[in-house]
Structures are given as C-alpha cells and as structure tokens.
C-alpha cells in the first residue's frame, strides 16, 4: 500500500476506473493533454486517448448538459468544472435537469452523472477561484453532494460516486490536494455516500466540519485535548443527504456543538445543520449551537484571505464560549 496525497489518490482511482469500465469518460476544460490544472487527470489522456479523456470547449453549461445526455445515453461521464466559482454558468443544468429528470420522467430516466470540481480557499488563488458554494447544491432536490477531507476518503467516495445511479457532485478541497499523505489501498473500495466519519471521539463538544476545515478542526481539537477537553470531530463527508443519525447521536452525547465552514455564514450549511439539531437533539443541548464560518462578503482578493478564512484563534474562541454555558 502506498502513501498518497489526495491528488494521487484521485488520480489512481481514475486510472483504475477507466481500466475497469469502458463506459467511463472524463470531460472538461484542460483535463486532457494538460492533465487538469491540478493534475488530477495526469496520464489519463496518454493511456486512454482523446475519446475518453475529452478536452471540451470552454462552456460549463455545455459540459454539464452534454454529460447529462451522455449519462442518459448509457455512458458514465465524469464532468470536471475547473473551479467551483465557474460552476455558476452551468448551475441551471444541475437545478433544472440533473436533479429533476428522474422525478419528471416518473423514474424512467436515470442520470448517473458525476461532476467533480476543486473548491474552497487557502492557497492564495486569484479572485473567484476560492468559492465554497456547497449550500447552493445541498438545497437542490435530486442531487447528492460529497466532500472528502482525506486521500482515503477521496478515493473511496469517488468509487461510490461513479457507481451511484444518481447525479453526484464531488467537491475536492483545493487546500487538501497536496496537504498530507496517507496509506490508500490499491484497487476498488468504497466509502458510502451519506455516512459521516468521527475523525476524533470526544464527549465535551461536537465539532462538525468538512473538506479543508477538517484539518483546522483536528488541529484545534488536539490543542483542547492537551488541556483535557475532549472534542468530538465529525467530518461529514457527505453534505447531501446529511448523516442525521451521526449528528444526532454525537450532539445528544456532548450536548454542545460548533459547526465550521468556509462558506459565507448566512445561508451556509451550518444553518441547516442547526435546524436539524433542533429537530433531533434540542433537549440535550447545554448551550446554543454556534458556528464559525467565512463572512458574508465575496471571497476576497488573497491579501485578505487570512482574515476571511476560519482560523484556530476564532474557532478556539467560539468553542471556549460554547463550553462556558
């Protein structure tokens, strides 16, 4: 078993999948010869050719819309959007079609579509290259949304996603692409869609996170650990459908909860999770559920990035307050 970072784990998974299923193809901007701007598709073009690793014209609605047609027509397309901030011109295809075709056809049409994209901040990218727009997707019926935070989960979730009969949006935290390596098994294995992961057990407070924020959550949780405070870190891994059970049982146990995300606060997924906790664990709460998030501003130019992104200091402060009550 090899130690891999997330890019390597994804790349290996793609190579294996392409070997195993001739219906699978990858399409997007610069995914072919260039291997993708983050090199996730490195080597695929040389090995499987331009019929299966397709450099498309520069048009997100065209990419996703064509992929929908390919999926309905019997292929297993993986559509890559170059950055999440450039998904917006293609959102209509997800909102109006990918998420609705099964329901509108009374179950007759399946759209086994996988849409991959890098998302989130933290690498001093140019403007509009660091959006964390998952809440637009998790509010959309008919879609599934997954976010790995480790190389292992990245590979396992990618296998689940490609095998899923419904459209899955696969968000890849840019900050985690090359941050940290771990052992990732060769060959097929799956991480089920819809199951959160307890990244660290604890009994004093539940810290809910996903993507690159899991890294921050673990750092801060270990810090509190040193001071004898046991924080349970719940890495959601799937944002739609949420793992209601995992959230309920952790918060019922700890009675305290902080939710952490990069996206702007208002309307971010923390709100939904808070409402869910209201429904399933209100009577266990010893303190209000709190959130640490990006701010309600457009993701700023990178000189302000450190101000925008949740950091250990902000997170620790809110955890400390939540522990007080």
């Amino acid at each position, binding site marked *: 078993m090899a130690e891999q970072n997330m890019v390597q784990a994804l790349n290996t998974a793609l190579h294996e999948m392409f070997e195993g299923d001739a219906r699978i193809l990858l399409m997007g901007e610069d995914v072919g010869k260039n291997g993708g701007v983050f090199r996730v598709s490195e080597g695929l073009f040389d090995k499987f050719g331009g019929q299966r690793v397709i450099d498309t014209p520069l048009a997100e*609605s065209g990419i996703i819309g064509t992929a929908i047609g390919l999926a309905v027509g019997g292929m297993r397309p993986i559509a890559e959007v170059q950055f999440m901030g450039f998904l917006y011109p293609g959102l209509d295809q997800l909102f109006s079609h990918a998420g609705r075709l099964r329901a509108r056809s009374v179950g007759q049409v399946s759209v086994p579509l996988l849409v991959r994209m890098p998302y989130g901040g933290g690498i001093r990218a140019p403007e509009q290259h660091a959006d964390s727009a998952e809440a637009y997707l998790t509010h959309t019926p*008919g879609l599934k949304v997954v976010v790995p935070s480790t190389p292992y989960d990245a590979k396992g979730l990618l296998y689940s996603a490609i095998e899923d009969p419904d459209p899955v949006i696969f968000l890849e935290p840019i900050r985690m692409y090359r941050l940290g390596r771990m052992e990732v098994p060769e060959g097929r294995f799956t991480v089920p869609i819809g199951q959160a992961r307890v990244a660290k057990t604890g009994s004093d407070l539940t810290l809910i996170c996903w993507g690159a924020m899991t890294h921050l959550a673990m750092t801060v949780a270990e810090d509190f650990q040193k001071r004898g405070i046991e924080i349970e870190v719940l890495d959601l891994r799937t944002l739609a459908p949420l793992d209601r059970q995992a959230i309920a049982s952790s918060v019922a146990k700890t009675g305290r909860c902080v939710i952490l995300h990069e996206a702007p606060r208002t309307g971010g997924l923390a709100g939904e999770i808070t409402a869910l906790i209201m429904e399933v664990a209100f009577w266990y709460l010893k303190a209000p559920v709190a959130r640490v998030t990006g701010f309600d501003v457009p993701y700023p130019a990178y000189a302000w990035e450190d101000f925008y992104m949740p950091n250990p200091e902000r997170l620790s402060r809110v955890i400390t307050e939540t522990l007080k009550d």
Partner: protein
Amino acid sequence: MQAWPIYRVMGDDANAPNLVSDDLALRIYKDMVLLRTFDEKALNLQRQGRVGTFPPSLGQEATEIGSAYALSKKDWLVPSYRDHGALYVHGVPFENVILFAMGRAASLAGDVRALPSSIPIATHLPHAVGLAMAMQMQGEESVAIAYFGDGATSEGDFHEALNFAGVFKAPAIFLCQNNGWAISVPVSRQTASPTLAQKAVAYGIHGVRVDGNDALAVYQTVKQARERALSKEGPTLIESLTYRLGPHTTADDPTRYRQAEDLVPWRGEHDPIVRLGVYLEKQGVLGPKDLDGMKKDAQEWVNQAVEAAEAMPKVKPIEMFEHVYAVMPPRLVQQLQDLEGGVQ
C-alpha cells in the same frame, strides 16, 4: 453573403412523388389530422377546466409529424413542451400527453427513446449532443434530435450545444421551429440575423432552411440530416419556417400583440394540412370524403385517450417522493410520513 434558400418539395409536383411515396405521404397526412384534432380537443378540455395550461401546436403539424417520420425508433427525441405531435409519432401514446396536460405526470415515455419535454427554453439542446455522442460511442446507428423554437436560439445553451456538436461532430439534429413568435416577441426582435439557419456558420456546421408547412420537405430535410449525421458528416441546424396559429399556450392572449389578419393566409392556403391535402388529391390518393372519415377516426381516438386518462386512479403522495432518487433516502421517507400526518 451566402444565400439561404428555402427548401420546398410540394411546390414542385414533379419531384415530390420520387422523394416520398404516396403511402407515406398519406400516413403523414393522417397523423397531421390527428394532431390537429387532438390540439383542438385539448383546447376545449382546458376551457372546461379538465386540463391545465396547454401549448397547442396548431399550424405546426407538418414540422411535427413530417420530422418524426424521418426518424428511426432507435433515435433519441429531445423535445420541448410543444412537441407532443413528434412524440406521438415516435411512440408516446396520446393518453400520456393528456396526462401531462392534466398535471398528472411530467413525462411517461415508456420504452420510447425520448426525454421529458424541456420546460426551460433551449436547456435541453446539450442533452441531445450528449445523447448523440453516446450513440456514436456505443456504435449505434442512431442520432439525437432536439426540437425547439425561434426564441430558443437566443439562449446561451443553444450556442454551447451547437458548438459542442460541431467540435465533436456529434450525430445530432437541431430542429428549430421558427413559428414567428416567442410568446409575444416576433422573430425579427429575437435576433438581428435575417435567418436562423445562418447561425450554423458560427459553428462550422451544416445549416438549412425548409418550408416548415410542407410536410414532405420537412421529412426530406430531416432524413438528409439524419443521413449526414450517421455518415459522420456532423450535425445539422434546420430552420423550419412555420407559423403558430394559436395562442402560445391557453394562458396567452395573442390579440394583445398580433393582428387577426396576419393569420389569414396561414389559416388558408398556407395551412400545412390544406397543402398536403391538395397534393394528395392531385396524386389521386385522397378522395373528397376521406378527410371527414379521418377526422371522425381521430376524434374517436382522442376521446378514448382522454377517457383513459381521466379514468386513471387519483394521484398519491408517495409518487412525489419515490422517484427523486433511485432509492428513497431516509429524509424523504420521513417527509412522506410528515405529509401523511405522522410524526415530523
């Protein structure tokens, strides 16, 4: 500037029979009559409150029926909301169309290779490109055809789809029904280009104009486009020149934006059913009373479809939940309980 002539068959009596057999022409004619009958019935039902908002294809029967006859059942039909005529020819029962207008089912195409009718304009065109590519990749002798209107040519998805189709030489047909109007907006206001067919130039693909009220010309044009596509010559944009005789939908009042006299020629000698009827009479295969018989048959058939649709059992809440995902996730199970009065 390139010229963009309008292709016609029926103007040229000598030519038509060589292109389309009398038998086929007669079948096309019958289905056009059936479609007209169906639309008139649906308009009536809507007035009686028995179906909801309905978009008739009155005046567009030649394009609807003629085009669909040129397809193989293995082709993918990617329709807009006004294309129940083409869907019917492709194999979707009229009963399902009635159900659709009753707000009963988005689309019940059954085994027919057709997508649910797209409501958002032009956004289904990329699906046709993907389907066409999928057919080619799997070595099938099939094309995909998208139906859409003149208004649809303004949407970004029209552009992205045709450009993709051009780059990938997808075996796709883009059938634009230029019926003169996008609700109240005339085509002259939709674009400054004098024809819609010339938009093909932007994508390096084949573009043609056809008389959309000449069923035989439409049939022939789609057939050729299909052959081009299958012989890897790439996609075709067809501008089919027709006219929307009725309102946009039953919710629309066209007197607000067009004159009654505009319709006169289209209801008369330009009417696609009149035109094909005259031709078939000249060919000697349609007698003066045949049309009446056809109309009667059509009415009966349509009535039966309506009865069947109205006899369907009442809709049930679970039907709203069970096809959102292949497997109903726990939260939908719970929401169904919630709706049915269980715990939330």
